[in-house]
């Protein structure tokens, strides 16, 4: 972090990588898919040039948090078996002149629900064990189905890394470090990049029939069966004009409710902790008073005093639950909310446009 010359400023993703990630993620949708990224770090811009999926291995997640979801695919990037797998794969890639540096991993998400323990632990593993300059690419399958590609790059902030290493997530620690949920991730801008060959390939795809005749068709049937009607290569993508807003909002509400549920559990945990803490504290105070009285009487009787700090042995204060989960949850809710905002802004536009079109007389005023 401090010793590296230029911090990572941007992520540049090759077209090949984009397509491979989309393929893998949509194939396994709705369960999570993960894979490794290889590429090169060029002056603070991380160029991701190839990728390969992780096999799903059934291994117990080695988590020092009990509540990590038992999802083998989501935990794959930090599984031991996969470290060997990716090392092997990268060695193979090196033989055919591919950039053979491990630069991170990718995961699929559904409606932005990627802020969870698994992602954090994976990225922590990558940033601490493999290579500090690694990123996590998050491809949101269901948002991409809405019409525009959703691919984002994240890293854990240095502050969070330090805290996570020591597992310092009690409220006292958080006060000290002044860490809040926006401090968990750093988002890096993602840029797509095409090679020359792919550029020319795409140009060719879009005007493949330069020499075909453009005579007018003789009948409706002829028109409908003409090659122009049939070629599906790179038709303009108008999915984002679609008006089906309900499924999206429904799903988002569901996810929000889930988050509220989590939040409730966390709050209850915390309240329970405080109740127990209060009770213990009371007991300790009572004990201390008793001891003080006893000592007072002993002093008058000229007897040796009893030690006053014995309570530390007798009573055990409960451990404070980690605030990490609720912090992540807040971050996740933030993510949902901004997602809804984005969606609302475009869908209200669409709806007003439709109203304006279907009721032209009302908008003419």
């Amino acid at each position, binding site marked *: 972090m401090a010793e590296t010359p230029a911090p990572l400023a941007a992520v540049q993703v090759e077209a090949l990588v984009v397509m491979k990630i989309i393929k893998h993620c949509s194939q396994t949708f709705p369960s999570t898919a993960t894979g490794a990224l290889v590429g090169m770090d060029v002056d603070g811009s991380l160029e991701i040039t190839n990728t390969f999926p992780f096999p799903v291995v059934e291994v117990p997640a080695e988590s020092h948090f009990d509540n990590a979801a038992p999802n083998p695919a989501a935990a794959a990037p930090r599984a031991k078996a996969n470290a060997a797998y990716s090392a092997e794969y990268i060695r193979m890639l090196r033989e055919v002149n591919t950039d053979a540096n491990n630069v991170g991993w990718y995961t699929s998400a559904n409606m932005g629900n990627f802020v969870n323990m698994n992602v954090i632990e994976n990225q922590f593993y990558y940033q601490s064990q493999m290579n500090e300059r690694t990123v996590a690419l998050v491809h949101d399958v269901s948002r991409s189905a809405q019409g525009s590609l959703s691919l984002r790059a994240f890293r854990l902030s240095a502050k969070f890394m330090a805290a996570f290493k020591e597992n310092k997530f009690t409220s006292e620690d958080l006060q000290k470090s002044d860490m809040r949920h926006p401090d968990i991730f750093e988002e890096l801008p993602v840029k797509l990049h095409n090679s020359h060959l792919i550029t020319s390939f795409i140009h060719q795809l879009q005007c493949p029939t330069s020499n075909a005749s453009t005579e007018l068709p003789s009948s409706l049937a002829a028109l409908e069966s003409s090659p122009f009607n049939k070629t599906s290569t790179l038709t303009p993508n108008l*999915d984002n004009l679609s008006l089906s807003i309900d499924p999206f909002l429904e799903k988002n509400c569901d996810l929000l409710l889930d988050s509220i549920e989590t939040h409730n559990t966390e709050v209850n945990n915390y309240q329970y902790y405080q109740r127990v803490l209060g009770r213990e504290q009371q007991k300790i105070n009572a004990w201390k008073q008793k001891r003080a009285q006893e000592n007072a009487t002993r002093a008058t009787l000229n007897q040796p005093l009893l030690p006053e700090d014995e309570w530390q042995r007798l009573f055990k204060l409960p451990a404070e639950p980690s605030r990490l989960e609720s912090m992540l949850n807040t971050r996740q809710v933030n993510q949902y909310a901004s997602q809804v905002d984005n969606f609302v802004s475009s869908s209200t536009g669409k709806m007003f446009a439709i109203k304006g079109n279907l009721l032209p007389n009302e908008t003419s005023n």
Partner: protein
Amino acid sequence: MAEDSFLHLARPLGPVSVGTAPTTAPLNVVIQPQAIFSVLDHSLRRNADQERVIGTLLGTRSEDGSEVEVRSAFAVGHSEAEDQVEVDMEYHKQMLALHLKANPREVLVGWYATASELNTFSALIQNFYSGQGDGTWPHPAVHLTVSTEAGKDLETRAYISAPVGVTAERAADSAAFIPVPYELRYAEADKSGLESIANAKDAEDRSATITSDIDSLERAVEEVISMIDRVSRYVESVIDEETPASTAMGQFLLNALALAPKVEPADIERDFNNHIQDVLVVSYLANTVRTQMELSTRLATAQLTLGGGEGAATGEGQRNQRGGKGNNQGGRRQERTEEARA
């Protein structure tokens, strides 16, 4: 590219031992963009002295074997000299095993080369890929050529092969390549990705940023407007008798126009209001939840700002915290009922 027309000829079959007989059914090849992109990437990364590079194609076969879908590809090192070719078969096998671990549903379907030329070496490699044991036997191996010669169009061709040979010794390095039709097909999910990639095609640095929802909406609207413009220009020029009229085209356009729904203004008004309210309520609720959560976490960790003695601050902070939590829960319950209604 794909405009070539094809005539399917049953390929001659070589001498076959009894057992599974290879089919002669027509074969259609479907290529996914991922595979092509891999091939192009490999072509870029070839050694300077190599004219072409080869690799393995993986994918799926339909049940009756009449359609092969090429889904991915990986590179295999090889070297060609005047009179011999060396393919790193060990590498191919290891890589195949690695690939199948992560993609258990894909099978070996063939191989690619990045030059259009078919020569003796091609036949030799083809025979390896279509052979028994490690090859695709009894299905035909697909050979895909993607020419990547500078200054020329990229040309993709797909072949399958049939064994020919004057004598048994020559059979190993000869094969009759039969062109088969292929099509480039991509899934729904690939669409948005391809579109973003295509955005970069006219940029000087060949790169593009990922657009936000609202930007891509804008682009889509602009695109539709330009298409409508084009059609109306055409219609106008027909009306002005500058371009020849076509009844088929007219019918087509009329059909398209007839798709406009006929609805009562009152219905529209009602639906519109209902929907916009739903949308806005959800947005409002989402943001309320966000604020509440933010508030709750802030309160949990905000004791230091209260000032005063340490003991007092802690006590107060804890009380505050509890108060804040209580409010939160109340607020949340309300929200939940509202959301349920929405």
